[in-house]
């Protein structure tokens, strides 16, 4: 596979990604070629690296998202490009984002379970918006009375937020249970005491003793 050949595949891949205007998977890109000229997966992967490098310094970049590869505006230029569009980028309410967060981190999850954690009812509007945007979908029904729908996030959700998988979500902050915190406090106190002990005290306890 010579360089000229690779450059040609790269140009065709770029042309196709620009024509599609949406992510294309590696296989979708390979299928643009007839069987005889179809690049192997490894070759195609290599070409994508070449393309990514070839976009350096340009207005757009190659991004890998859940559904495949996408050419998109470089984030640095978004403020200028945004002026093209009359509408300001949509803002999402906290209620919607919290619901989305719960579905993303707790999926599959029912509305009731979301409500338990949020402490308020989840409006049907929010669920509908999330479904309409195709960020979440119903993946089944929990086998409890009422058979409530269980929600999970979709590939479109990942695509929209520039992720290839849920593992790219920002980590959920840890909940430290009370016992653990109790132990921690105890440890801190312990440490403080140890730190102070040799200086202040000179009672007759045996020096070998470290426990107080």
């Amino acid at each position, binding site marked *: 596979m010579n360089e000229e050949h690779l450059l040609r595949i790269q140009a065709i891949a770029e*042309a196709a990604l*620009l*024509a*599609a*205007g*949406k992510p294309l998977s590696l296989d979708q890109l390979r299928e643009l070629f007839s069987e005889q000229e179809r690049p192997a997966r490894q070759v195609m992967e290599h070409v994508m690296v070449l393309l990514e490098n070839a976009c350096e310094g340009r207005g*757009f970049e190659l*991004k890998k998202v859940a559904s495949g590869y*996408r*050419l*998109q*505006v*470089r*984030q640095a230029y*978004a403020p200028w*490009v*945004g002026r093209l569009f009359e509408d300001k*980028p*949509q803002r*999402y309410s*906290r*209620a919607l*984002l*919290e619901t*989305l*967060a*719960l579905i*993303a*981190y707790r999926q599959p999850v029912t509305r009731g379970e979301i409500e338990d*954690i*949020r*402490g*308020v*009812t989840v409006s049907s509007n929010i669920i509908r918006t999330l479904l309409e945007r195709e960020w979440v979908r119903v993946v089944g029904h929990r086998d409890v009375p009422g058979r409530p729908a269980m929600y999970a996030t979709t590939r479109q959700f990942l*695509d*929209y*937020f*520039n*992720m290839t998988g849920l593992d790219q*979500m*920002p980590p*959920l*902050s840890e*909940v*430290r*249970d*009370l016992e653990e*915190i109790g132990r921690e406090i105890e440890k801190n106190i312990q440490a403080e005491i140890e730190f102070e002990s040799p200086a202040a005290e000179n009672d007759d306890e045996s020096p070998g003793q470290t426990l107080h």
Partner: protein
Amino acid sequence: MTEESTDQATPGSQETVPEQSPLALVSGKPVVDLPKDLYIPPDALAVFLEAFEGPLDLLLYLIRRQNMNILDIDVSEITRQYMDYIGAVEAMRFELAAEYLVMAATLAEIKSRMLLPSRESDDDEEVDPRAELIRRLQQYERFKQAAEDIDALPRLERDTFAVSAALPDMPSSQPHPDVDLREMLLALQGVLRRADLFTSHHVERERLSTRERMSAILSALQGDHFATFESLFTVEEGRLGVVVTFLATLELVKEQLIEVVQAEVLGPIHVRARAVS
């Protein structure tokens, strides 16, 4: 909630903390605290309530405002403040989501349990009555944070845009639909039923091979030229083939699609299509 800090503490209010965000903005003026006399501009309270995503959110706010550790809530202080807000809201006769009242009851219960002397101070089984509330607050706080994290992710239509280029002239490469023979026959059946041709029309009786041969002869006779009659026949087809061709020729003559010319008796016979394409 804006981040704007203000010193506009209401005189007479005792729980004012030095740096706090306003509860709401009313006509541009921040409302920082709820005065003790419960005189609150009604608009402020409405905005205030809307700013919260429920009782847990409100509680988190109150705890923060008091610089309390979530793990070490001063229940009686928080309960008092919470009740103040609830009371104010009720006094203004705003509709209050039921969840807020449930939380009020929960707080009151925790407070009363904490006031009671524990029966046996060294009992390991003794559970801090605040534990469940703390657990819920912690849980909620995680997802509140997660929602902010998601909001901060670079996303389409705000931080980046999908790009596309115009298409050049495209070769039309529409693939052909597949057809099942039965599908075609089914369609035919429809026509025939519609036209009520089953009984009367001669379509039925004709041998298809004859009609096929008619087409073949016609297309062989394309153009304004005569062909010899014999050239229509293919010896290799055998007797049946000859018969089919002959019948087809007769049918074509009958339908006035070809003309047959013989210049002299027993001379060569010539045929040609009547309407020259």
